[in-house]
């Protein structure tokens, strides 16, 4: 199947001017196929949101795409004019923001915020618009009477689901979800994940699901990409990554967020801090925190991405054999 979203060698930086920019995403490759759920995991500050914003054309200054390309359905997104972007938004690509509890306009009724969106995309019949709105509201299981409410009259979880509904109303083919459930309690989180998954089956859209909690992804993602300090460090299918995490960072993440259902007694962060992106050390960015670090190698030479088995790649010096046996990605 031809890819829906194809990110190649993407580099995104913040700032610049006199000082060199802070590189929040570096040389990143990622593909999303139609109807697929791709999970992106990594600690806070490793560039997940930046990646999603850059790929959906929502990066604000001082953020800037410094290199690489993003193609959607074969079309180059980075060179798109603002009007062309506007037409693409919500119809083709939607984005559930990290702070999605606060993304509704506090002074407009929910219904009007749906209507605005549809009007902007040429759904001019009011009846059609109302029907679509009602339908997605049902999908996310919010009673229709809340359509005439203002955002502050909804609970946090409801607001979040209303935003997801809004992102679905024009049946986009790709939805970015940036930590859509982080602020919610576990029960609500699961309910939302469940409904996203059900919806995906019904509506057939692809999802890029971003979280710092790897355990969530193992349940729902077809493929999982692990990010560290702006780099993609490992990518594999969900079951494969669960069974056989290769990168020491992935293993540490797995320890820190054991899958749901397993005992969470060991729940703690990964020892140490992610490196300061303004002063990345040479070599592997994880070297300083890695239990399997090889001195003189990991802190000197940056590991290249290698394909270990088909569909499973990792950037780590522990897997050189694969690099010789397999082909370099």
């Amino acid at each position, binding site marked *: 199947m031809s890819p829906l979203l194809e990110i190649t060698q993407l580099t995104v930086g913040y700032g610049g001017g006199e000082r060199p920019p802070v590189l929040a995403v570096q040389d990143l490759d990622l593909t999303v196929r139609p109807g697929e759920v791709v999970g992106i995991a990594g600690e806070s500050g490793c560039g997940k949101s930046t990646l999603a914003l850059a790929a959906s054309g*929502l990066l604000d200054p001082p953020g800037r795409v410094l290199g690489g390309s993003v193609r959607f359905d074969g079309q180059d997104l980075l060179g798109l004019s603002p009007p062309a972007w506007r037409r693409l938004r919500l119809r083709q690509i939607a984005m559930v*923001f990290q*702070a999605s509890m606060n993304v509704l306009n*506090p002074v407009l009724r929910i219904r009007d915020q749906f209507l605005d969106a549809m009007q*902007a995309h040429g759904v001019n019949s009011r009846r059609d618009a109302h029907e679509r709105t009602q339908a997605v509201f049902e999908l996310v299981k919010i009673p229709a009477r809340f359509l005439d409410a203002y955002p502050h009259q909804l609970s946090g979880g409801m607001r979040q689901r209303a935003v997801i509904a809004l992102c679905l109303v024009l049946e986009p083919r790709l939805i970015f979800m940036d930590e859509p459930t982080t602020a919610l309690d576990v029960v609500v989180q699961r309910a939302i994940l469940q409904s996203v998954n059900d919806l995906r089956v019904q509506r057939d859209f692809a999802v890029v699901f971003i979280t710092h909690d790897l355990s969530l992804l193992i349940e729902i993602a077809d493929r999982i990409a692990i990010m560290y300090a702006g780099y993609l460090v490992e990518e594999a299918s969900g079951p494969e990554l669960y069974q056989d995490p290769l990168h020491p960072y992935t293993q540490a993440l797995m320890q820190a967020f054991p899958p749901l259902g397993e005992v969470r007694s060991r729940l703690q962060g990964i020892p140490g801090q992610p490196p300061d992106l303004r002063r990345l050390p040479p070599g592997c960015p994880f070297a300083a925190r890695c239990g399997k670090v090889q001195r003189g190698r990991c802190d000197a030479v940056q590991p290249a991405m290698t394909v270990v088995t088909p569909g499973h790649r990792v950037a780590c010096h522990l897997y050189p054999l694969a690099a010789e046996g397999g082909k370099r990605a």
Partner: protein
Amino acid sequence: MPYLMRRVLVLLLTGWAALTINFVLPRLMPGNPAEVMLARFQGRLSPRALAALTVEFGVHTHQSLLTQYVVYWGHMLTGNFGLSLTYYPASVGQMVAQAFPWTLGLVGISTLIAFVLGTGIGIAAAWRHGSRLDGVLLPVSLLLSAMPYFWFALLILYVFGFVLGWFPVGGGLNLAHRVGGFAGLGTVVDHAILPAATITITAAGGWVLTMRNNMVAILGADFVKFARAKGLADRTVEIRYAARNAILPSFTGFAMAIGFVVGGALLTEIVFSYPGLGYLLYEAVLNLDYPLMQAIFLFISLAVLVANFLADLAYILLDPRVRAVGRP
């Protein structure tokens, strides 16, 4: 306490405070200002009028303060503000009633224009913030709002009234030609343009700054970013999502702004000899006409209170969050 009830309470208490200030000041101030005034008008007023004044200002009276206060309230509630000393035998009520519409028209219209203009410019500046326009607009607005109103009034009066002769140099309308209808209205407008321009220009600067700052803060809000992510037209994001929210603090800050504008308008009226409350207040102050002064203070306060209350109502209409909370 619900928002509206709180605002009504403020309204009532402030009204009471304004009335009480009028009662307390002449009795409290050192140097017995009321006696000074009475001495000045001895012989110029009828004995009855003088006697009424002594009661009104609590001079040479054996009544207790409380009795005086009750009597005072009775007078205020029945609209009995006494006689004007300057315009004797006209009553204070008549003088205020004559001047009030002029001020209301002048201040009302120029405030409205200033608000719309300033807010609009503020929105535009914030939308392009960091641009040259924004960079220039800020110091200019600051300079405009830091200018003394009366000084600016004097300058444009001199330039456009005396030097260029485009506009009349004072008054409210031209009584020399007894014209009615549209021509009469024309002279009223003619006389109002310079004072209105003074108030509008100096007041707009403040609104530009307020709106620009609120709007810049709102533009960083998540719901504005999401509005863009929905693919809405720029104009819709700017107005319906950003500005619509950014304007709310302008209503809560209205109290201070309107007080400032009214103060400026009074000074402007004085410069243009405009026949409104400001000019009347000036004459009352010059002539130590305390009854007139008090009534004008009271009416200005009440008018400002009402304006504030209207702003509060507008705020309630514009912000669903302060309306009664409840699930639909």
